[in-house]
């Protein structure tokens, strides 16, 4: 029998060690799996590489993980935002590495990793600093930049509903990076607002099929914070 549901955040994060690369879903606070991030803080894993869109705000969620000094490197598109004080303090002090990636290229690199595509050519960033040193190629009369798949050891995902097979749905703009990150990591851990019985989710509208998911922990967390 397939049962991916685990009963605690600790069990959900078991085996995640120092130096892991970790994708974290969410766009701003919406769809960001804060409880799992808090679990990472409690766990104390260090030297992490974090792959995510933003770099957190305030002192909760991702910002808390950054402030705890557990992150060596962040790969993201938009670290600067209202309240991104934790990131900015680390960055200005030279205590965190930043790989800045255009948002669409970040999404596509994550998707490529999940889809077994080794690399791809995108027109985005051609001729800019963010393509500096990268291979380029003219395709169909247009200049493109070569970008590589971006896999991770772990993906932390926030879902709206999940069942014991790991099938998930998301809520409104909480979908964002969550479904693609779920496909791109060796270990995909879902924090779900609701647990539902197998068969509750309509097969036509499952957004993340369970094949991509390893563990589900029920966290009726409520509305996005911050």
């Amino acid at each position, binding site marked *: 029998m397939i049962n991916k549901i685990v009963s605690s955040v600790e069990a959900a994060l078991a085996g995640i060690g120092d130096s892991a690369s970790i994708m974290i879903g969410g766009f701003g606070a919406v769809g960001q799996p804060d409880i799992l991030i808090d679990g990472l803080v409690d766990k104390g894993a260090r030297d992490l590489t974090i792959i995510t869109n933003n770099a957190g705000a305030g002192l909760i969620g991702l910002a808390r993980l950054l402030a705890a000094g557990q992150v060596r490197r962040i790969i993201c598109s938009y670290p600067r935002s209202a309240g991104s004080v934790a990131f900015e303090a680390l960055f200005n002090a030279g205590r965190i590495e930043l790989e800045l*990636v255009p*948002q669409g290229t970040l999404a596509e690199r994550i998707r490529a990793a999940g889809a077994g595509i080794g690399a791809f050519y995108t027109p*985005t960033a051609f001729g800019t600093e963010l393509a500096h040193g990268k291979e380029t190629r003219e395709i169909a009369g247009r200049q493109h930049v070569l970008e590589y798949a971006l896999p991770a050891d772990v993906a932390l995902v926030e879902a709206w509903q999940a069942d014991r097979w790991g099938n998930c749905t998301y809520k409104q*703009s909480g979908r964002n990076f969550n479904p693609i990150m779920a496909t791109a990591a060796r270990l995909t851990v879902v924090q779900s607002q609701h647990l539902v019985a197998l068969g509750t989710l309509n097969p036509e509208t499952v957004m993340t099929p369970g094949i991509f998911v390893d563990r589900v922990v029920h966290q009726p967390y409520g*509305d996005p914070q911050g």
Partner: protein
Amino acid sequence: MGTTVEALSREQVAARLASDIPDGWYVNLGIGAPTLVADYLPEGREIVLHSENGILGMGPAPAPDRVEPWLINAGKKHVTMLTGGSFVHQADSFAIIRGGHLDLCVLGAFQVAQNGDLANWSISTTEKAPAVGGAMDLAVGAKHVWVLMEHTTKTGVPRLTERCSYPLTALGVVSRIYTNLAVIDVTVRGFEVREMLPGLTLEALQEKTAAPLHISAGRLAENEHG
């Protein structure tokens, strides 16, 4: 600078730009000033707004008592959904952008060059905590890229230039610029003035512009007849 003409407010520029968006267009409004365009979309036209975080058919801000906590736009502000809207994940959202499916993207800018080069994401290569978000994808992907910006910086330095000095966002993509003084097309000839504030002379506008201004063919005809 010798002109007594009153420059348009940001809201007025946004309204001027909005009036040019045809019925049925799919449009992304960049964060910052371009977001104001949403408030001035002409009555009677169905214009579908896209948001990078995965929304098509985004509506205006909700009444304070009708906020949906899971529904935010790319600027991380709460929004609403229009009837007919839909959600997509991040890779699909940027497939929409990069794949050329948006009719229009409206972006803010630090500088636009006469060849259509755009600089809007960073003011220096040594900036602290740089952030790019979806700007580079939007700039290369949309069928039309219109820029909404002040004609000069606060200290009077022209933003329309022969060549961008700030880091580039994309090469040769801008087709039209709406400033607080004029509407200017970017053509093979360079900057072509499509419209100026009443009372403003081409000479006065040229003074605030660091590349040659041409009178557009359409405007010439208008002058001849008017």
